[in-house]
Every structure is written in C-alpha cells, then in structure tokens.
C-alpha cells in the first residue's frame, strides 16, 4: 500500500522557515496569507500499514518537536509515486 506521512513542526514551536516563506509571499504581493508552516513529506510503499505509526514514533518524526499525519491510500498503486 502507498502511504504518505506529513510531518510539520508542532504549532507551539517557533517555525522561522514558515515565517520566512510567509514574508516572502507577502513581498510578492500575495495578501491574506497566515500561519505558514514548512514540513516534510515522506512517501513509502508498505506491506503492513499498521506499522506506520511505530515508524513515525521511532524514526520518521521526532514527537517532541514534530506532529505527523499518516495519509494512507489503499487504492494507490504502490509502483506510482
């Protein structure tokens, strides 16, 4: 099964990268943009999706500083990104 894991800095933690992107958008004239956060996307094919949470907790994310969201697609073709 194809799965996507979205990882982002915890909301309470200062995210200078998100702030920089937000300022850059404003500088380019894109108004009305707020709460920009920059994170990571990990895509993988996995035989047993029940293991995904443990993978996130032990390696893919650092739960102290990051939130993760597992987006599984049971119909997804594992060979196509």
């Amino acid at each position, binding site marked *: 099964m194809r799965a996507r894991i979205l990882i982002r800095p915890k909301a309470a933690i200062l995210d200078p*990268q998100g702030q920089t992107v937000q300022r850059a958008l404003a500088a380019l004239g894109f108004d009305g943009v707020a709460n920009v956060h920059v994170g990571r996307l990990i895509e993988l094919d996995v035989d047993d999706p029940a293991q995904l949470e443990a993978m996130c907790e032990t390696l893919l994310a650092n739960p102290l500083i990051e939130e993760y969201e597992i987006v599984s697609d049971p119909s997804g073709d594992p060979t196509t990104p």
Partner: protein
Amino acid sequence: MKTGVVRFPGTCDEVDAQLAAAMVGDTVILWHGDRDLQGVDAIIVPGGFSYGDHLRVGAIARFAPMMESVAAFARDGGPVLGICNGFQILCEAGLLPGALLPNVSLRFICRQVDLDVANTATAFTRACVPGAKLSIPIKHTTGRYYAPEATLDALEADGQVILRYAPGHNPNGSQRDIAGVINDRGNVCGLMPHPEHAVDDLTGSSDGLRLFESMRDHVADASVVA
C-alpha cells in the same frame, strides 16, 4: 584516562576532539560500525554532519552499532560528552532531554561566544570556578535548544542546565539561553559550543580545556572509589 571519540560517516570534528582529549590522557577513535568500546573511561560524540544530517540532525546516527554500546556505557554511569552534532545525536537517542531546532536566523553561524557556567559541580564543569565564564566557538545551523516548559523548569531546578550563553550571546534562539545540559544522573552532557576548538591560546582561547580537565578529574575520582 582513555577517551574514545566516535567517528560516523560525515563526522568532521573527531580529530580536534581527539587532540583536546589527548591533552588530559589517552585517546582512541571508535568507528560507528563497531561495538567494541576498547576499554575507554569516557566517550566523546563529536561534531559534524553524521550520515549527512539526513531526515533530521542526529536521527540516523542514533541507530549505529557503536551508539548501542555508547548507550549501554551511559546506562552504566560512564561519562559521555556530546558536542554539537554529538549533542543532537544524544537527544535523538533519548540520552538527553530536549531537541535541537534550526537557528532562528536559519543561517549557519560560526563565531566565538561567551558562556556562563551555571553549575560547576558536574563531571564536565568541575574544573571551573563558580561563576566562571568561558570563551568558546560555536558553528552550527541547528542549535536552537528546545524542550517543553515543564522540562525546562525541572532541568533548571535540578542543576541540569550547566552552560548558558552569556547575556547578549545567544546565537540561535535557544530557550532560556541554554548552551549545555546534563542528564538527571549527571553522566551524560551535551553542548552546542565546541570546547575542542578552544584548547590553545594560539587560537584565541583555551577555556574549552576546562571540560576535558573536568572529565579527567571525574574519571580519576571514580576509579579511586571503585
């Protein structure tokens, strides 16, 4: 005292760490793929970019075979000093509380900073006089110390914050100006500044030597007790 310095792929400060440790005893390089600690009395996890900083700083190095031996050594009370990337690795390994986040400036910063020694009664700072200030360089992109507020309160109450950036010297946005911490048992220390780059007056400061002298004195005392 025999100090082991761990070398991962991407480590770059192991030779300076070895030279610094050699000023207070014998040294040996410990290869990340090995498990044998070669009878060392203390371990340094040095700075650099282990495993290319892939995924997160320190995240991959934590699973190296040698890190299993380092963790066991730490659990047995052996002194372990993590410098910069070594600090990041020890946090990822759960041997130290907290984590290191990107500098608020998002820039790589390389400069001399002043540090206040906040606790001189530790295995890593005992050679410092109370109230001591140390001039030591920093060089990192990911050095902003973070821990939840409750954790920070507990660390401060227990004297586990041992080094702070002096007022006006916090280079990276670290919470409460924290530059170095120890674990609750006091035998594992991590700091972002590089004491191994400040051991000779020729390069501006020899203040970093205090940390290596502290470890030597700690090991000497421990062996007397044993």
